[in-house]
């Protein structure tokens, strides 16, 4: 829609709005008087608007009446048109607002950009200016530098010329000076300066007491000689001092070398294990070195010898290198261990290794066992299954041989045991015989004792008793005791016998048949009741001494006796309690 249209609309609005607002006022658009004019006007207007203007005309004939339908239609259309126009107007207004705002925005941005442009332009110009200035400066500085350089050169040349001038001048002056001096000297000499004199009361003797000598060529030569002598002395002194120092240093070197060798040599095996490749070489050189070290006297003899010196230093160097490498190795090892330790805790490391080792060994054992097992199985299978006779025979042979060996061994053992038993039996029988003898003696004793008792009643007791005790053996002297203590009973006696070192026949008798332990004790195979507390060996020795008659005493027997002795001791204790 063109702006003119808009304007029309606006005017229409205003024209429409005005009458509406001023309807009640006199100057209204339509009054009772001017209806037809109004109608016609409206018709015209409507027609001008492109609507059907006829709607109004129908009623125009009758004056004020208005045909409603077309009027309403027209009105409706007008309203519609009005609404549409309003809508479009609103839309247009909105559009306008939008566009205006965008326009404004654009304008602002435009202005800003313009500003920026201006600024950058200004900046550019400024930079251009500074560049120009800088270039100018550079130019001036370059020129300055050039001039400075020139100056320096000039100055240097001036300095050089001045120096040469100065040196020249100084030389000249010096020459002049010397000339003057000479002249002065000459003049002074020519003048025969009377004052120049020495006035001495009497001449002095020389401080060394000698008289002064004439200057001769010989004197000069002797002076030369003196000088060289003193120089020579000095050199000799220095030489000897250096020799001394050298010797000292050499000694230190030797010692160092020896110590190095001693330090390094015990490490050889381990180093060989660790580094097989260079250890051989090392060992070789070591041997060389040791040989060298072996002859220190030789070294000292030709200490000054160039060759020996070289050798010494070389060997030292070698040793030192080796020591260094060794140290480095140690260092690296240490660092490795450290890192390992750092990785896993301090205690965990050995345990882990241990566990690992254990596991490995267990595995190995298992493997071995399995291996054996399978071997056995295989053997069994081989034995069971039908295979060729030769191998079977061989195997059989093998087995029978083994069996035979074992049997032989067992047989030997058996034989030994048998022999032992035999011996024991012999001992036993001997003991029994002895016992029998003793029993017999005892019986006799008893008889005699009864006889004595009987005779005691007679008045000749004392005499007979004495004669009897004389005739008795020492072993049986105990019997005199019961004689004193008449109230003794046999049971008491048995008890006392356990205390006593010897088992008396009386006790045996009272016990009736002697027990095995008692028998052994009698045979002194076991120590008496007090001694088992002591060392077993003592008891064995005791038994062995007693059993001197028997040729062999087996270790087995000994053990057995030991066991027995313990057993018997227990028995004794039982009896005691």
């Amino acid at each position: 829609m063109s702006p003119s249209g808009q304007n029309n609309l606006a005017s229409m609005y205003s024209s429409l709005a005005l009458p509406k607002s001023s309807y009640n006022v006199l100057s209204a658009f339509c009054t009772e008087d001017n209806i037809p004019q109004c109608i016609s006007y409206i018709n015209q207007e409507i027609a001008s608007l492109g609507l059907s203007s006829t709607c109004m005309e129908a009623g125009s004939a009758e004056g004020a009446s208005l045909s409603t339908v077309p009027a309403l239609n027209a009105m409706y259309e007008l309203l519609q048109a009005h609404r549409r126009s309003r809508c479009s107007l609103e839309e247009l207004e909105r559009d306008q607002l939008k566009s205006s705002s965008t326009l404004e925005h654009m304008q602002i941005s435009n202005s800003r950009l313009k500003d920026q442009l201006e600024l950058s332009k200004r900046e550019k110009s400024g930079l251009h200016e500074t560049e120009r200035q800088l270039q100018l400066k550079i130019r001036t500085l370059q020129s300055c530098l050039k001039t400075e350089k020139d100056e320096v050169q000039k100055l240097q040349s001036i300095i050089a010329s001045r120096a040469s001038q100065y040196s020249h001048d100084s030389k000249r002056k010096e020459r002049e000076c010397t000339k003057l001096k000479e002249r002065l000297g000459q003049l002074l000499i020519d003048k025969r300066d009377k004052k120049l004199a020495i006035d001495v009361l009497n001449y002095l003797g020389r401080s060394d007491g000698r008289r002064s000598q004439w200057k001769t060529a010989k004197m000069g030569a002797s002076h030369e000689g003196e000088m060289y002598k003193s120089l020579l002395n000095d050199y000799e002194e220095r030489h000897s001092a250096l020799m001394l120092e050298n010797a000292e240093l050499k000694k230190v070197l030797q010692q160092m070398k020896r110590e190095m060798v001693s330090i390094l040599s015990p490490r050889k095996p381990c180093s060989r294990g660790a580094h097989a490749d260079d250890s051989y070489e090392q060992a070789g050189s070591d041997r060389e070195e040791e040989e060298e070290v072996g002859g220190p006297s030789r070294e000292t003899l030709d200490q000054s010898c160039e060759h020996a010196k070289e050798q010494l230093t070389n060997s030292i160097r070698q040793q030192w290198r080796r020591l260094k490498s060794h140290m480095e190795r140690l260092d690296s090892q240490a660092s490795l261990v450290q890192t390992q330790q750092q990785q896993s805790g301090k205690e965990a490391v050995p345990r882990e290794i241990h566990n690992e080792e254990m596991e490995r060994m267990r595995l190995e054992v298992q493997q071995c066992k399995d291996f054996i097992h399978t071997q056995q199985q295989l053997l069994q299978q081989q034995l069971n299954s039908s295979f060729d006779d030769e191998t079977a025979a061989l195997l059989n042979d093998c087995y029978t041989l083994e069996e035979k060996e074992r049997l032989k061994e067992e047989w030997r053992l058996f034989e030994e045991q048998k022999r032992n038993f035999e011996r024991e039996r012999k001992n036993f029988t001997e003991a029994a015989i002895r016992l029998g003898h003793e029993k017999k003696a005892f019986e006799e004793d008893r008889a005699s004792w009864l006889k004595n008792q009987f005779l005691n009643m007679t008045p000749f007791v004392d005499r007979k008793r004495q004669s009897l005790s004389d005739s008795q053996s020492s072993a049986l002297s105990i019997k005199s005791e019961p004689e004193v203590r008449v109230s003794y009973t046999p049971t008491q006696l048995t008890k006392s016998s356990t205390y006593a070192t010897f088992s008396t026949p009386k006790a045996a008798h009272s016990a009736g048949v002697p027990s095995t332990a008692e028998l052994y004790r009698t045979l002194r195979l076991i120590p008496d009741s007090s001694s088992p507390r002591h060392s077993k060996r003592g008891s064995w020795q005791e038994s062995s001494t007693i059993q001197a008659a028997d040729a062999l005493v087996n270790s087995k027997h000994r053990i057995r006796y030991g066991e027995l002795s313990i057993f018997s001791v227990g028995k004794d204790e039982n009896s005691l309690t």
Partner: protein
Amino acid sequence: MNFSEVFKQSNQLCKISPDGKYLATCVQYRLVVRDVNTLQILHLYTCLDQIVHMEWSSDSLFILCAMYKRGLVQVWSLEQPDWHCKIDEGSIGLVSSRWSPDGRHILNTTEFHLRVTVWSLCTKAVSYIKYPKACQKGMDFSRDGCYMALAERRDCKDYVSVFVCDDWHLLRHFETETQDLAGLEWSPNGCVLAVWDSCLEYKVLLYSLDGRLLSTYSAYEWSLGVKSLTWSTSSQFLAIGSYDEKVRILNHITWKKITEFEHPATVNNPKAVVYKEVERRPTVASDDLSIHNISMGSTLFNTQSKCAAKDKETGDLRDCYFKVMLCKSKFGGKRNSFIKASPLLLWPALDEIYQPPVQIPVVKPDPDRANPKIGVSTLAFSSDSRYLATKNDSMASVVWVWDMQKLSLEAVLEHTSAVRCFQWDPRRPRLALCTGNAKLYLWSPAGCVSVQVPTEGGFQVQSLSWHCSGDSLILLGKEQLCLCYMDTDQEDN
């Protein structure tokens, strides 16, 4: 430690005879010879004019007195007091006079270094040596007195002449590779001659006795070079002090540098001990009083001045406590007064021992002036060559002591004023120094001591020299002198 009374002297001319028996002092135109022990005057000689230079002959039998202005040298004998000898150099003038090592010849250097005149006292013979060079140290006798090296200048070239002192026979004459020879010095064993160039060039040349060039040493170029040079008593080391504030030590076998000692403004070496003197004024009145008492007293008496009582807040009793006593002379009938001061300021008298790093005061030299006050100007080895004492001119109040065994800094002695003079004990590793005040400073490996010289009227120690036995020291003031006796056995009171 005892101090003698004060004697007069002039021109700081006071020397102990080489045998250590006599003390010769000059007072104006008089020469006074005393016994060192009793300080009694043994001889008194009168010269023709004010004595400018005095020197003992090597056998301690003669004394040379030179009066340069008049071109006169007078020689006096101790054995025959009426014997005299007068040498007149005449109109040619005299700038230096010295004994030859045999004590029978006198070497006079004439004005403008025209020549060196050798006067024999045995034969009256005169010989001339022409073209001596005027330089820092142009003449040196070997320690055994056999040879003399003399720097010469002919045709704008440096030469060295070696003479046999016995009969002044010219043994060697050789040109040196120097621009402008500044000095020469024999090694103590007399076999090597060190020659150094002027400060414009760092160059040290080592010549054998027979004139062969043994070695050349140059530490750097294009800068001021050697300032001082000294041999160790063992001839083992050659110490070279230079303008770059360093001391370089050369060895005697390869003549290469062993080490160099720097003199930094900040001492960082934690092993070095730094002694720093701090001004702490004890009450002067009591000192004066005690001295006054002594001067008044005619009989033996003791005066004790305990400034410490007054100075308690400082807390340092040792710093200001000393005892002064007048005692009778042990020698002869004549009463001689010794002023005994003991116990003196004891270790560590130079105040607290500082732990490095310590800042040392440095005076920046004026670069526009010639001979700038910078660089190592003084070097001295101890008698056993164990220690080296050095002084850097830009730190004039500091003396550095170096250990030659460890080749490291041993001690730094910082004083309140510039060190005037230092000298090693000829027997022990003990260093005596003075700074132009009334104190004597001693350093030994055990520590440091400073002693107030208990004399009247502000005795300022300008210079000092040891007795050859190392038991006593001569302290020289401006117009006075006094002897200081070191007592090792603490004989107190």
